[in-house]
């Protein structure tokens, strides 16, 4: 079980989502992906996508306009 950090600060939509999708493909079940974002749309479309895929998802607001999306790969 490993943790992967993905820094997407300053990235415009949809780059955080596409990067996260690519990262998730390389990861194993039980691994955790932590995506740092400051794009207000990504804090919605990234969790929406991951939940749709059936992963465990949490969104944490880490600062003003900054979030961490934590995704646990379950399948």
């Amino acid at each position, binding site marked *: 079980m490993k943790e992967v950090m993905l820094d997407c*600060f*300053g*990235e*415009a939509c949809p*780059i955080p989502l*596409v*990067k996260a999708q690519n990262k998730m493909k390389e990861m194993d079940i039980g691994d955790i992906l932590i995506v740092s974002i*400051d*794009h*207000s749309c990504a*804090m*919605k479309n990234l969790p929406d996508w991951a939940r749709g895929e059936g992963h465990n998802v949490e969104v944490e*607001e880490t*600062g*003003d*306009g*900054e979030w961490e999306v934590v995704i646990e790969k379950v399948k």
Partner: protein
Amino acid sequence: MSSFKETMKKITSNPVYVKWLKDAWPYLTGAILLSLFQIVTLATTYNPWGVTGPYTNWGAWIFELFGGSVDKWYYFSSEGMQRTLENGFLADGGSVRNAGLILGALLAVLFASQFKIKKIKSKKQVVAAVLGGLLMGYGARIAYGCNIGALYSGIASLSLSGWVFGIFLFLGAIVGSKLLVKYFM
């Protein structure tokens, strides 16, 4: 000062605040509210919502600031256009509405305490912004509008042009996506 902080905390942990001012709304809520105010806009201003039309006026005003003149341009030749240019920004409804849109989004992020300046991160972003802006500007002008004026308002106005715009917009977005992944990511 501490009581002020406490009051702030009380407000920001209130469920009504969290639901309406902090959390993202479902997309469908957005669709319903946008439709409502589109309809209100048509009913009160006799025209649907548009965004890009005023940009040409902004261009003309900036051009005039540098001593240029658009009097001979076909696009600005109508009497209505000339009057709009003469009366200036604050009297141009579309221009004021665009300014309002910027400030409305600002208000939304401030109320959610989520405002943050996002600086440009790379040269790629500069190229993407310049090229994307130019393509959108030119495209919107010759196609009579953008996603709002030509697509949303066009289709809702029962105009065939809105549907044609939508089909080729979709094809353009696919090409744009390929370029984005290849060069701008």
